[in-house]
């Protein structure tokens, strides 16, 4: 698959996503934030980082960059979009996914590996997982406390659009294993069609044995057609 990684000023996981995608067998390229051309990529990755410094709200300014207009159009056409960490925040700001991100409940940046239960395996990003599998990926964010109003949350849950949930090593999504205060332990959600996925954990950081695991690589491999 041809995958484009968007580079905002302030993106800092762009190279990591490129590397992991290439390891999984994709043809990767970068997409500069001021471009209006997606260069016929099949999937767009919005990587982690601090796009435009995130001084107002995470992702708030990135959402108005020229490339994002194209990404929105691409998503509406059914094209694949994966937002990781700051990329997830951009997707929320852009309205491609519902909800918003609040500061972590601890008010501190949190960086550690966490366990996640895979709740939805029908998306193109998660099709190689078994439903209910517990995987381990690193998180690293200050604003990962997912919030949505009750109706939205009910819809997300009812439609099976919660894709990843923070849990303990046995798959129980309890409060003690919620690293940021996120509602219903939500770590990742998708849109109705399943072609847009936003997630706080970093799959690109768990794509090689020497980095401590390859659970993240499965997400990139799922994209191989």
């Amino acid at each position, binding site marked *: 698959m041809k995958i484009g990684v968007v580079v905002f000023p302030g993106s*800092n*996981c762009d190279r*990591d996503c*490129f*590397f992991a995608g*290439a390891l999984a067998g994709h043809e990767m390229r970068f997409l500069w934030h001021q471009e209006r051309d997606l*260069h016929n990529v099949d999937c767009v990755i919005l990587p982690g980082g601090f796009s435009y410094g995130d001084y107002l709200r995470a992702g708030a300014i990135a959402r108005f960059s020229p490339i994002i207009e194209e990404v929105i159009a691409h998503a509406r056409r059914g094209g694949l979009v994966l937002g990781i960490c700051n990329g997830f925040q951009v997707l929320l700001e852009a309205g491609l996914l519902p909800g918003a991100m609040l500061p972590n409940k601890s008010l*501190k940046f949190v960086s550690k590996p966490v366990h996640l239960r895979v709740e939805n395996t029908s998306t193109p990003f998660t099709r190689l997982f078994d439903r209910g599998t517990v995987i381990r990926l690193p998180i690293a964010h200050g604003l990962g406390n997912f919030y949505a109003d009750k109706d939205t949350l009910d819809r997300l849950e009812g439609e099976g659009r919660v894709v990843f949930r923070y849990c303990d090593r046995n798959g129980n999504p309890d409060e003690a294993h*919620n690293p940021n205060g996120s509602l219903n332990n939500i770590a990742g959600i998708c849109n109705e069609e399943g072609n847009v996925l936003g997630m706080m954990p970093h799959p690109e950081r768990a794509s090689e044995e020497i*980095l401590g695991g390859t659970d993240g690589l499965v997400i990139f491999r799922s994209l191989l057609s």
Partner: protein
Amino acid sequence: MVTQSSSKLWRKMGLRDSEYELITSTLGREPNETELGLYSAMWSEHCGYKHSKAYLRLLPSQAPHVLQGPGENAGIVDIGRGVAVVLKMESHNHPSAVEPFQGAATGVGGILRDIFTMGARPICFLDSLRFGPPEDEVVKYLMAGVVSGISAYGNCVGIPTVAGEVAFHGPFKGNPLVNVMCVGIIRDPSTIARGITGEPGNVVMVVGSKTGRDGIRGAAFASEGLGSDSEKDRPSVQVGDPFTGKLLIEACLEVIEKRLVVGIQDMGAAGLISSASEMAGKSKTGMVINLDLVPRREAGMTPYEVMLSESQERMLIVARPEKVEEIREHFGRWGLDATPVGEVTDSGMLQLFDKGELVAEVPVGSLVNPPVYDPPAERPDYIPDLQELDPARVPEPQDLGKALLSILARPNIASKRWVYEQYDYSVGTDTVIGPGRSDACVMRVKHVLPGGSYFEDPDAGAAQSTLIREGPGHPELGIAVTTDCNARYCYLDPGRGAMQAVAEAARNLSMTGARPLAITDCLNFGNPEKPHVYWQFQECVKGIAHAARALSIPVVSGNVSFYNECGDGRAAVWPTPVIGMVGGLEDVSRACASAFSREGDVIILVGPESPGDLPGAGSGAELGGEIGGSEYLEMVTGEARGKPPVVDLELEGRMQALVRSLITQGKVRSAHDLSDGGLGVALAECCIPGDFGAEVVVEGHGRPDFILFGETQSRALVSAGEEELPSIYDEARRMGVPVRAIGRVKGRGSPLAVEVKTGEGLTRFEVPVSRLRDAWEGAIPSIFDDMDRGDSGGGDDGAGV
């Protein structure tokens, strides 16, 4: 206007009368105020190293693999396969004491610029932090601020903060130490950049942020001395902008990689004056700078303020005239200014113009060569008394298991998870052994780094993707990094303490399997004009030099921070020569962590089991363990006292070589050095991560507590499969290193059981690993409990659905 000679303005600017006379005779006239300001900054201790230069020459800086020694923004060593590693450590103690968040954040930003200025892509940060007793409310505030400042800057620029140390001692209460280290790599050593000007006619450019009044020292002095306008409340705390810092990295690396620049220099302390004069000084050229062309954030700045501003995220670039436009384009793409402000000349003079008017003209050579002082040094009287310790009078614990739990909960020993989980340590996907997993952190060097220039070659992606997928075809290189210093040892015996810091830093690297390659040091002391402080400084430098020579590790960069003192008596901090060290691994997949990983493995103590026969051993050796200056002694008696452990550098070198060799051959599954808290703490730390128990029998003469918690050097714990034992013994014998199997790793859930056999009898204790973990992991979070109430994650805070 009052004349300078009558007002003695130079004194207020921190210059001595003799220095003023020297300036006057150099210029052949009295300097004007701007010129005096330039000298005052460049001849400050911070820029001029007036009190340290003479001694720093003692440090060995030569070796075949050294590509750049001291004198540039950072040192560089060749680690093989054409990869060069760049390293530098710097202090940001005073700014952090005043404003912990911004002080620490700008410290990170500053050290970062030192690394990419050389053309290197930064790969990690390390932080060596020292605070007062953590129960103190102000200390808590300082520590929380410093950690979040480091986290804010480092996380945003996307460079992992992977290692370092945090220590707590009374003398750092009002003057914390914040030493920040950065490591970078250069994949093509022909692109190493330096702070030089090249030929006359080259263009001088200011790039990055605009210039404001940040960090201009002493508003009182400025208004009195410089008679400027009425603005009194000038910011003197520099504010960091990590977002701009990140853009600056990318833009600078682009222009360096494309060989568009002749020279490049970070604008750090003393801003433009320092970078301009250092560049011209190194190249023996001159420079004209038109101050009105420097992009500014505020109106009405004086020439003095423009030259001295410490606004962050700025660099000085020198380029050939025909490259200027291309450089501007690169910076423009990243939304940054790149503004020509002057020209390189052959005059040997620094000439500053403001709207066409010459406002300062001084010889570059005199700015960058301040007078060097070798002030009186005197061994303080308290040393003999401090080193006095009657070990027999140290109270003996009833229960060794309880003593182990107590020492694990000491803030100096306890897990620093509360700190490092605020740092993004996994960004960059190169962190192979991250914080908390070994004595050092291990980074890998990717064979292809995607990117380079994002613009010019749109099709590079496909080719790079293929290269990445196909793999390097050889093992990936690894880089191990660490910082180390035991300030308590240095206080009790500066020379021995400094040697120990070098030995332990090297030991930390060796425990991962890495060969130590280079040192960067950060020397923190009190006021050098006090003879006992200068003595401490001399002893420490000699100690580092001695150990670095003995272990053949060059010192390639460093920083000196004097005047670390506080309180009414201006009490100095403990002498703290922090050693930052970098090592190399031929095959990063062989890197070793410190925790036990398999039930049934044999636990082997490498190095001397008992300090009894070490010549010059520290206090307590005759009773079974060197407890002079130890954490244990402080825990039991509340005192920093005694002769600290001796370092036998030859034995140290052999021991490290043995452990490295065993790791490289894949004969051991874990390796952890014995340091603060001795064997007892090391055993606990090996058990906790994997929840493995252990059954251990230690033999010695003397007191069981000294045997367990003494801090005798040159020792490590390794674990290995039983089948490897004979060959491990063989190799140890060949290399002249004592080794002895002292026990076995037990299954998950088993306790740590230790038996100490002495001539006098046998002591045995057992502690569940979960209790060891609770003590070790719980100590630091409990200090911050009341600040972190949101953390507990209880019910009523919960979701507002």
